């Protein structure tokens, strides 16, 4: 059963932060000329005085946010991930992460869904970069329901937060009873044969992959990790304990992001074979969303096939095999 579609995360972003601004007069929105794309324009219409257009000057924008935070405002900074995270990285490091100032960095157009914009806009390593930064809470919501809750939580938390937001509508993972808890991973499917760990809007596709695997007699356990930092170490160790193999799946580079985080954690606490599915040290390119998911092995079918192949290779090699064969 394929999961149904939810609302586009960017709409959730625009609407939720606008609602929050109605409750909290300290909230301001900073935009670098992309509001019509990120949907920060919803905020601009509702609260024109608190919508601060910074123009095409992202490094300055992050610095202005830091300054505003010292005067008691809660700045939500919005533009595409490429320009919200990577372009002004040193400003984030020095003025926001090192100071611990109360700035919310909302990176739109995360992952592969950039409207076919290609490699300049398709940032593969935002999670790797942000989770490596001391003091930076790093969250990749799995669907629209979770994104809304993450934004509400971020507004209530005092300190820097990076929220990774996706442009297009993605599948809905959670129902209205779901409650996001910062720093907590969530078991979204119980199984005993293999653990699939995922983050962001890749998780719904992993749940679909688990359904495909079930039809092939493979019972996958699925752990959703919305908060990359702080990481839910006990949940990852517990998931590894259930199965003898862990596969991470992420819409980004396998270096340093979720795959990196899980590998680091398990090598220290519970040495376990980990296979990392995601972009294999490459940049992206322009194509439709579905084509890109196929190309990088992230569609439900491609994830299922890779996991099945991995388990079969292990069975043939026998249970003594402790490593994935070198390519």
């Amino acid at each position: 059963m394929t999961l149904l579609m939810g609302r586009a995360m960017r709409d959730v972003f625009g609407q939720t932060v606008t609602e929050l601004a109605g409750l909290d007069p300290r909230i301001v929105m900073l935009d670098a000329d992309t509001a019509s794309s990120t949907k920060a324009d919803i905020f601009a219409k509702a609260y024109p005085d608190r919508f601060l257009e910074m123009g095409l000057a992202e490094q300055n924008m992050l610095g202005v946010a830091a300054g505003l935070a010292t005067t008691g405002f809660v700045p939500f900074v919005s533009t595409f991930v490429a320009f919200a995270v990577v372009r002004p990285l040193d400003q984030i490091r020095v003025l926001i992460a090192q100071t611990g100032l109360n700035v919310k960095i909302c990176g739109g157009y995360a992952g592969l869904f950039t409207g076919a914009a290609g490699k300049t806009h398709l940032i593969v390593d935002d999670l790797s970069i942000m989770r490596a930064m001391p003091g930076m809470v790093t969250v990749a919501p799995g669907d629209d329901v979770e994104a809304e809750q993450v934004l509400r939580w971020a507004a209530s938390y005092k300190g820097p937060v990076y929220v990774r937001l996706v442009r297009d509508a993605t599948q809905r993972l959670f129902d209205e009873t779901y409650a996001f808890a910062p720093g907590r991973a969530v078991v979204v499917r119980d199984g005993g044969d293999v653990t699939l760990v995922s983050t962001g809007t890749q998780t719904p596709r992993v749940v679909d992959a688990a359904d495909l695997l079930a039809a092939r007699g493979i019972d996958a356990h699925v752990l959703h990790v919305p908060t990359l930092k702080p990481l839910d170490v006990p949940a990852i160790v517990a998931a590894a304990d259930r199965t003898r193999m862990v596969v991470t799946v992420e819409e980004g580079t396998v270096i340093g992001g979720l795959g990196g985080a899980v590998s680091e954690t398990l090598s220290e606490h519970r040495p376990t074979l980990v296979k990392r599915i995601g972009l294999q040290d490459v940049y992206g390119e322009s194509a439709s969303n579905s084509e890109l998911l196929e190309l990088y092995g992230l569609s439900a079918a491609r994830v299922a096939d890779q996991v099945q192949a991995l388990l079969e290779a292990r069975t043939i090699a026998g249970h003594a095999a402790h490593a994935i064969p070198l390519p």
Partner: protein
Amino acid sequence: MPDMTAMVDAAEVARLEEVARRIRVGVVRGVNQAKAGHLGGPLSAADVLAALYFHVMRIRPDEPDWPDRDRFVLSKGHSSIGLYAALALRGYFPVEELLTFDSLGSRLQGHPDMTRLPGLDMSTGSLGMGISAALGIALGCRLAGRDARAFVMLGDGECQEGEVWEAAFLAPRYGLDNLIVIVDHNKLQQYGWPGEGPDDRLPPAWPGELVAKWSAFGWRVLEVDGHDMAAVVRVLEQAAAGDGRPVAIIANTIKGRGVSFMEGRYYWHTRTLTAEEFATAMAELGEPVTNPAGGAA
């Protein structure tokens, strides 16, 4: 402009000059003790720092987080020891603490760290950023209805950073006349381009270039001799009378000001002193060292 001719009380000027002298003493002592840090930049900035912290800024040293205070951001964060000396003399922390500069566990980090030392309005050190943060402070004070000003000091070399001009482009659009930039135009940067003689370097900006550029970006530009205390006080007071435009004060200064062998020498940007150099510097600053070997007297 009537306030151009306004006299600053001579006794007040003398008091501020004495503060500036003590800031310079604190700089030389702190850097000598740490065997690290910068000299040329803090020495050129000392007079402006004295005027700001002892005459111009509305602050409460016993209540560093006072919400209505004027703010100061040292965008050229490598001149931290100059700012620390000003803060200590103004009563934010004990003057003796200046000797902990750069040492393990000190609140006086190599570059200003606002998470450690009360009285710092922003952390800086990566050049080009402080002006953006000051812009955000000025904007925040405006939005919150506070009558507070954001002063920010840039280096002339720092003005080569693109972010400076991002901020320069934006501030006039928001009419932030509570944002006051002071460019410490000491005509040198760390290394720069070679000049005529073996030890000569070209200035980071040509004569008149900074005035032209800040004016072109829509700022109200004022120029001053950054070592003429009466003029410095006057120009800072003049800057406060806002006309809807942000203000850029180009302070013409001399790098290493106050220590003859450092003045105008690019290699004194950062350098450790020998015992003799330390003694000479302290003597020139009117604070002869009684035990030259010990240094930290």
